[in-house]
């Protein structure tokens, strides 16, 4: 009888140990499952984010052509940039038949970089007016701060004068 009781106690203890082990294993598996689900969500989220970023990057790459169009009208304050601007204005003179001479070009040292150019001009009224219209519609941030023309003689259609232009389309530093 006593032996049977001992056996019963041992069996109960074994049962208890097994139950505890099972419970522990189950709890651990449950935690791992929760971790797995959370990781799946995170991976999906990162995949979505990665796809969005990739598509944004591709879109930005397609703007390269448009960007190169924009940069055509941006000047840098280097000597190359100054020459580029002066040349473009002098080309307007050639187009309109106005004789253009660049008198000066100064680079502004304010917080907002700029260039101030002074041009002298000579041509007929129609040519001068055409040049002025082209300057006004020049596709850059150009402000005419002074424009002066005088007729040379009452009998000849020859006008001469000067134009002062302020350019604030300066290329941002990369």
């Amino acid at each position, binding site marked *: 009888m006593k032996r049977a009781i001992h056996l019963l106690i041992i069996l109960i203890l074994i049962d208890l140990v097994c139950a505890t082990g099972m419970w522990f294993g189950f709890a651990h598996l449950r935690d791992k499952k929760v971790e*797995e689900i959370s990781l799946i969500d995170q991976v999906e989220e990162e*995949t979505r984010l990665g796809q969005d*970023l990739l598509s944004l990057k591709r879109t930005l790459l397609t703007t390269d052509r448009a960007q190169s169009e924009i940069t055509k009208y*941006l000047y840098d304050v280097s000597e190359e940039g100054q020459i580029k601007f002066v040349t473009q204005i002098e080309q307007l003179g050639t187009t309109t038949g106005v004789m253009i001479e660049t008198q000066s070009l100064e680079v502004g040292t304010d917080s907002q970089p700029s260039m101030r150019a002074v041009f002298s001009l000579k041509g007929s009224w129609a040519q001068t007016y055409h040049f002025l219209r082209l300057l006004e519609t020049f596709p850059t941030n150009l402000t005419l*701060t002074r424009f002066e*023309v005088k007729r040379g003689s009452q009998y000849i259609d020859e006008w001469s004068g000067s134009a002062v232009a302020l350019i604030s389309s300066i290329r941002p530093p990369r």
Partner: protein
Amino acid sequence: MPSYISLSSGIKTLQEQFDEKKSFSMATSKEIPGQLTLITQQLAALRPTSDGVGVAPSRLMEVILNNKPKNIEINAFLFTKANNAITVQLSGVSDTREDLLAFQKTLQTPEVQTVKFGGSFITKQAPIDFVVTVTFK
């Protein structure tokens, strides 16, 4: 036990995938703001400055010349733009005082602040040389 091993191995794979994707996103997201900022700065540099009056000198020339009486001849045109104020100075010759008076009236439009002649033209003999300064609002 097999479930535990399979679950652990799955988690390890997922963790690797996550790390890989995370590093890709981080690298890409570092490049994009720089590019976007550059585009924004370039567009800002091309945006017209808001220095108030935006009337083109050619437009003013056109309006003045179209409205002037026939017997008035303009020999010089000066346009200046400073501190949000536009000033146009015209020099020329008028055949009669009446024409000059009529010209003065045509210049007084709602956009014009002041019209100032260099001197009184009432007593001058024809042909009358004049200088007029027009300040716009």
